[in-house]
């Protein structure tokens, strides 16, 4: 494209390194301009008061943050476990020899991947309209877990299927040649290796579920069952200040950052084992 034609190019072009140098200089200039504008035009004391009020921060932490954090953890963990089990089942169905199983799994996955999680939660909270007398166990956990599990399983199924297919065929052949049944080969040989491959994408899905758990407010909760978002929003509304929401946001980071570190460790040790 930009290669000189037999050295006949009349205009001297910048060398690639010079060009990269200039592009970098422009990027720094833009960054400095944006920061300068922010410093000049924002009322920082007002921003500080609404986002980072120290007294209100202490207050938020002391009055229910840990409870909300725990609830978010419980909602997510339950949803993830259900999603993982159902997702594995769906992945196996997608790889099944029985065509209707493949169709069913595909329909389920495409349907729930395409639907906003919000809609699933709404549908779940209205489910008793269709099934009068239907009561999910352990309210509100049963409903939240089921809704998160349904959304999560659709995503996880595709991740798990890809992981299973990434395990070389020779592994199954070796297992079968030793007399293992196809089920034993799947559980003893394919899945342990597949889950190693799946750790990074599954973590992404776990983090996504943590964030989707903020939709539990749709189900209708008593204060003791508030998750981080609902808790932060309620406190922000009653104090007319954004600080509690910032604290709740930091609460999510308390969960997700250690998770990233643990997963990185697991990946490192798994790659050692290979």
């Amino acid at each position, binding site marked *: 494209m930009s290669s000189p034609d037999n050295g006949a190019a009349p205009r001297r072009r910048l060398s690639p390194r010079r060009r990269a140098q200039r592009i970098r200089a422009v990027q720094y200039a833009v960054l400095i301009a944006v920061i300068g504008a922010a410093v000049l035009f924002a009322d920082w004391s007002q921003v500080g008061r609404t986002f980072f009020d120290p007294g209100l921060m202490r207050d938020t932490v002391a009055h229910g943050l840990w409870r909300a954090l725990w609830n978010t953890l419980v909602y997510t963990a339950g949803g993830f476990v259900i999603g993982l089990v159902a997702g594995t089942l769906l992945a196996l169905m997608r790889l099944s020899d029985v065509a209707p199983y493949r169709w069913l799994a595909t329909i389920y996955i495409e349907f729930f991947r395409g639907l906003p999680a919000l809609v699933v939660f709404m549908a779940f909270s209205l489910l008793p309209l269709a099934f009068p007398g239907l009561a999910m166990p352990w309210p509100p956990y049963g409903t939240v877990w089921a809704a998160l599990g349904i959304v999560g399983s659709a995503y996880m199924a595709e991740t798990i299927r890809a992981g299973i297919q990434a395990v070389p065929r*020779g592994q199954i*052949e*070796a297992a079968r*040649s*030793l007399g293992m049944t196809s089920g034993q080969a799947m559980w003893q040989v394919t899945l342990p*290796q597949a889950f190693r491959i799946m750790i990074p994408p599954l973590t992404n899905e776990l983090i996504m579920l943590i964030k989707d758990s903020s939709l539990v407010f749709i189900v209708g909760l008593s204060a003791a069952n508030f998750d981080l978002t609902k808790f932060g929003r309620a406190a922000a509304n009653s104090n007319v200040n954004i600080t509690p929401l910032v604290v709740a946001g930091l609460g999510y980071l308390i969960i997700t950052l250690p998770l990233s570190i643990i997963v990185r460790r697991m990946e490192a040790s798994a790659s050692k084992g*290979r």
Partner: protein
Amino acid sequence: MAASDALVEIRGLNKYFGANHVLRDIDFSVARGEVVCVIGPSGSGKSTLLRCINLLEQPQGGTVVVNGEDLTDPDCDIDAARRHIGMVFQQFNLFPHHSALDNCVLALMTVLKKKRPEAERIARGNLERVGLAEKMDAYPGRLSGGQQQRVAIARALSMGPDLMLFDEPTSALDPELVGEVLAVMRRLAGEGMTMIVVTHEIAFAREVADRVVFMDGGGIVEQGKPSQLLSDPREPRTRDFLKRVLKPAESED
């Protein structure tokens, strides 16, 4: 040989991959204790024939009888039959998430339902047999190709097989590592194991095999004692193949 002492008895075997007819009416049998080397150009169907013996490939026609049991019969418990048929692959196919010892232990526990101590005792014995007593706790990724293939042999032997199938066991190895694997196989043959070996190692076939089978185009072209077949082949195709393999530098095309 009499039918009674045949461990493997294949009749009228036909295998297609789509429209490709890869095995054509194969009749083939192996006696107990016999070591048979199968040679032939790539695409001749020799690996497919081997993989039909433990039904990793499902043939479309014919019967495969091993140890008196017809594996092609739909009522045959193929998982039970495979316990007695060890297989060694070109790419080793060790389980990368298990140590050398656990590679051997896994099937002993899951398939033969042995308790851990007994499974480990058997596995250790077989790893010692292939000269890997010091590498029991190593993961496959830390082993050389030759060591990996010896673990794979130990894994197959741990099941106490009546028959060992080798599918080009040295083709994926660096040349200097071929010898250690062939040495293990030679010792195994000396101990009286029934072996079917698909290989390009003509020298090994000459020395160890009781019988050499030459395959081409999906059929058995010629078979006989190694001294006869490898030195004085009857068929022109065999002669041509051996010339290419033994003197590759002199090939004309």
